[in-house]
């Protein structure tokens, strides 16, 4: 996986569709490339297919048609367990293991990867620092943390085995505005240092503009357009304008 040339997109969708067993199409003919080290934001309203797109990357869902490439290799060729362990995954509900301490939660991937205990402990310590949590939180349980702290633990857990990729599904969606802004800032600072290849799902335009290297707007299972944040707000595309307008009215009301 190290020999793939850098000009090739790190993640690529080619003519990808996803249909439910009932025949209902959640994603239609998606073509999209994610460059190494960028933060690609999938923006769109509920049901637009952005979470589906995300889950196709770590094979929690399997496309009905088309091909998806990670590091230049088709997903079908990847061992799914190996693939997932090199892709950090952060979701809105966090999904922390309630019966594990913070330290064990963060150390899950290293542990299933068979790292020795002292190395895991050291890594957990580093990560707590990285995401701005006090070391004494290590022995707490998720229920004893605030929403913001939980989301930080979720991020630390996703970063534990130093994956090249991060998939983030509305990770700040359930937080209050102040904590959310704080975590967004820290995400930016962290991403500047770590340069992971990030696919970030959100419905929040401001979050997309703030965090994205590029923004891919999705609507009804289709990709509308991909733009840099600057181009996005000035786009002539009617669907993009409608989305931007919706946020402006929301802000002024």
């Amino acid at each position: 996986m190290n020999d793939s040339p850098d000009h090739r997109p790190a993640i690529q969708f080619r003519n990808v569709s996803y249909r439910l067993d009932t025949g209902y199409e959640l994603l239609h003919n998606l073509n999209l490339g994610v460059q190494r080290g960028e933060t690609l934001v999938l923006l769109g309203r509920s049901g637009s297919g952005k979470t589906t797109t995300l889950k196709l990357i770590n094979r929690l869902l399997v496309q009905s048609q088309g091909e998806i490439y990670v590091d230049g290799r088709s997903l079908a060729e990847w061992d799914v367990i190996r693939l997932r362990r090199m892709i950090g995954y952060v979701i809105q509900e966090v999904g922390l293991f309630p019966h594990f301490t913070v330290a064990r939660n963060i150390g899950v991937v290293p542990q299933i990867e068979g790292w020795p205990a002292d190395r895991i402990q050291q890594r957990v310590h580093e990560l707590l620092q990285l995401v701005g949590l006090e070391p004494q939180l290590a022995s707490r349980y998720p229920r004893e943390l605030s929403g913001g702290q939980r989301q930080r633990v979720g991020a630390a857990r996703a970063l534990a085995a130093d994956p090249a990729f991060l998939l983030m599904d509305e990770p700040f969606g359930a937080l209050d505005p102040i904590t959310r802004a704080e975590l967004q800032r820290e995400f930016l600072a962290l991403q500047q240092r770590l340069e992971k290849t990030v696919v970030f799902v959100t419905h929040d335009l401001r979050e997309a503009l703030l965090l994205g290297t590029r923004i891919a707007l999705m609507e009804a299972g289709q990709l509308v357009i991909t733009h840099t944040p600057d181009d996005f707000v000035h786009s002539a595309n009617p669907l993009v304008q409608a989305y931007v307008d919706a946020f402006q009215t929301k802000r002024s009301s």
Partner: protein
Amino acid sequence: MNVFQFMAQNHTEVLELTAEHLWLVGASIVLAVLIGIPLGILITRWPLLKRPVLGGANIIQTIPSLALFGFLLPAPWIGARADRLAILALTLYALLPLIRNTYTGIKGVDRAVVEAGRGMGMTDRQLLWQVEFPLALGVIIAGVRVAAVISIGLATIAAAIGAGGLGEYIFRGLAMVNNQVILAGAIPAAALAILADVSLGWLEKRLSPH
């Protein structure tokens, strides 16, 4: 003479019958746990098996206990001794709550937690033993609790086929039309049931995820 004087006078026999009763119930619960929990896990992995397995366990529950003891009588090694036969019958009755609670316990684990585990690259086995089973344990113990309380009651009927236990007093009392003798069996059996309920309830609470 009241029932407690009767029990005090016959305390060796009361203790013997209680021990027999505990043996019947304990052995059958252990067997039911060993069979029921794996079956419950199996049907979370193979949804096609869910209906036949739960259906089968359900049908067993509908067979009247006396009839089940009778059906099993001709079985080779089993039918040779009354206690084996009683243990087998009680095991069969205990299966349903165990299979059902194992299944619902695992299926009831927070979807986000399971998805996070799978998305991080846990194998099915790691997901089961590190996440799903520990989080389902409270519900599974609740199944053991129901099974134990049912078994303690049902085991009194095992005396009808000569398997011993506190049912001896109940049947003897019925034959003699002597309430004291009936109560000498019924009171300790009820006490055992309450004890099992309380202690397993405590365990259930301790093992439930926070």
